C-alpha cells in the first residue's frame, strides 16, 4: 500500500515524535507542577521562556538550537567532547527540535489539569499517612491523567507536524531527518511528483486523525473513571 519511501518517512516521523514526547514527559510534568503550585520571584519570566517556542517562528528556534548545540556552540562542543554526542543532522536532533516545540503545549495542558485538582483531596491523603510523594503518585497523578494524556497527544501531534525548527537544526536528510512534512516539502519542490505529494498529504491527515481520536477516547475513559460511571 505504501511505497518504501513513504514507509521510511512515516516510521521516522512516528519514531521522532514518540521520542520527543517521551523526553519531555517528565520535565513537562515537573515544570507544570512548579508553575501550578509554587510562587517565586521570576515565575513570570520562567513561564515566558517555557512558552517562547509557541510564539517564536520555528526557524528561530531551530537556529538557536543550531547555535547552542552545533559543534561550534558551547553546549554542543562540550557534548561532543565529553559524551561523543552530536545532535545536528541526526534523527535525535529532529526529535529534540520536535520536543522543544511541543514542550509548551504539554506544560499548558498538564498545568491546567493540575490547577483543577481539588487540593482538599491531597490534604486528606496527607492526614491518612501518605507522604508528599505518595500523595502525588496516588492522588494527584491519577486525577490529572486525562490532562496528561491530552497534553501528550497534543505534543505528539505538534512534533509530528514540526517543520521549520527541524529543517534548520537537523536538515532534510532522507532516512535520517526527512519526516513526513519534510518529505512532502521535498516532493512539492520536485516537478512531476504531485501525485506522490498528495499521497503523503493523505497519510499525514490520517495519522493526525488517529492520534486525535485516540486521545479523545483515552481522556474520556479516564474522566469517566473519575466521575464514577463504570469504564
Amino acid at each position, binding site marked *: 500500500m505504501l511505497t518504501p519511501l513513504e514507509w521510511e518517512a512515516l516510521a521516522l516521523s512516528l519514531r521522532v515524535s514518540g521520542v520527543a514526547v517521551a523526553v519531555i514527559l517528565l520535565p513537562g510534568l515537573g515544570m507544570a507542577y512548579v508553575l501550578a503550585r509554587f510562587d517565586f520571584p521570576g515565575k513570570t519570566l520562567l513561564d515566558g521562556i517555557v512558552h517562547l517556542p509557541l510564539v517564536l517562528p520555528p526557524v528561530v528556534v531551530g537556529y538557536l538550537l543550531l547555535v547552542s548545540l552545533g559543534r561550534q556552540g558551547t553546549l554542543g562542543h562540550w557534548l561532543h567532547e565529553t559524551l561523543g554526542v552530536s545532535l545536528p543532522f541526526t534523527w535525535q536532533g529532529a526529535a529534540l527540535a520536535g520536543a522543544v516545540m511541543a514542550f509548551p503545549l504539554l506544560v499548558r495542558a498538564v498545568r491546567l489539569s493540575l490547577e483543577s485538582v481539588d487540593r*482538599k483531596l491531597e490534604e*486528606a491523603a496527607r*492526614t*491518612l*499517612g501518605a507522604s508528599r510523594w*505518595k*500523595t502525588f503518585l*496516588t*492522588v494527584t497523578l491519577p486525577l490529572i491523567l486525562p490532562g496528561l494524556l491530552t497534553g501528550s497527544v497534543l505534543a505528539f501531534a505538534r512534533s509530528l507536524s514540526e517543520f521549520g525548527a527541524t529543517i534548520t537544526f537537523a536538515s532534510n536528510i532522507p532516512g535520517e531527518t526527512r519526516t513526513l512534512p519534510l518529505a512532502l516539502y521535498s516532493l512539492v519542490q520536485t516537478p512531476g511528483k504531485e501525485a506522490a505529494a498528495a499521497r503523503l498529504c493523505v497519510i499525514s491527515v490520517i495519522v493526525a486523525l488517529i492520534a486525535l481520536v485516540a486521545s479523545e477516547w483515552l481522556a474520556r475513559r479516564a474522566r469517566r473513571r473519575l466521575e464514577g460511571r463504570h469504564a
Partner: protein
Amino acid sequence: MLEAQVFQRLGDFTLDTSLAVPAEGVTALFGRSGSGKSSLIRLIAGLEAPETGTIRLGDTWLMDTQRHLWVPPHRRQLGIVFQEARLFPHYSVRGNLRYGMPRAARADFDGLVELLGIGHLLSRTPGLLSGGEARRVAIGRALLSRPRMLLMDEPLTGLDGARKQELLHYIRRLARDTGVPILFVSHDTREIGALADRVALIEEGRVMASGPVDEMFARFDLGPRTGRFEASSLLEARIVAHDEALCLTRLVLPGMTEGETLSVARLEGAVGDTVRLRLRARDVGIAPSWTPPLPDFACIPATLREIGDEAHGPFVEVMLDVGGQALRARLTREAVDQMGLRAGQALQARLRSVTISRHDVIVM
C-alpha cells in the same frame, strides 16, 4: 491526651489559645462559625503551621516552634474527618477505606465496615454515595489508618434530620466500641448534648471554658454563647420498664420519689440501661412542693440552687438541684415573684412527657 498551645494571625483574626483533649471519650469543640474551630483543627492536623506554639499528643511532640520541631501531617497519627467527606473519586469505597490502612489494621476492616453499615457500598464509586454514606466511609477511612485520635470537623453539617440522627448514632457507637478518643467540632448544642463527654467552648480564637458536658450546659454565664432558647441541661436517668401496649418507656431519675417515673416514647435500650436526657430549660416547670401530681407530668423534688441574674426582659432562668444533678428551668419573672422564689427553697420540678422527643434521649 492532646495538648495544644498555639498562636496564629490570619488577616485580622487571631487564634491564640490552648486546648487540652483527654485520651478517652468524646470532646466537643464548640463555637460559632468564624470562632477558629476549623483553624485549630488544621493546626493540630499539621495542615497549617502556627506562628508560635506547641502541640503534644501523649508523650509525642507534634510541633514546637521554639525547638524547630515539626512532624509532617502524614506522621501525626491523627485521623481527620473533614466537613466534606473528601473521598478519592478514582478509588472505589473499598479503595478509599484501605488507602491509609496499615497491615496491622487489616483485621479491623470487616468489623468497622459492619459497625458503620457500609458493607453494601464497598464496590461502589464515591460519586454515587449519598451525603450520609460518604461521611460514614470517610469516618471508616480515617479510623482504619489507626489514628491515636480522631478529629471530626462538623461531620454532620448539611445532612437532613434523619441522616444526622443516623450518623450521630454511628459516631456514638464508635466512641464506645473502638476506644479511639474523638475531638468533635460543632456549633450545634443538640449534637454536643447527644455525643460529647466534655466540651471546650471557643470564641474569637480562644478557648474560653472547658469541662464535663453537663457542667458546661449548666453554666448560666455561657448562656449567651450556647443560645438561651435552646438552653438545656443534661441529666442521667435509668430505664426501669417498657410498656409495649402504650409504646412508652419509663425512666427514673436520681432523686425521684419511690414509685414515680418519667414516661417517654418507647426507646431501644434495655431495662437497667443508663440514658442521657436533654431537657430544654423552657420545657421544665416549677411548682411548690405540695402541689398534687398531674397526669403526663413527672414530679421530682428539687432544691433551688440559683436564680439567674438577667436584669431585663420577661423571663428568668433558675438552676435546680435534682438528686445531685443540675437542672435548668426557664420561667417568667412574674412567676418567680408570685412563688417568692429564693435560693435554697424546696420545690418540685415538672417534666412533661410530650416535650421529650426520641432525639433528646440517648441510650449510653
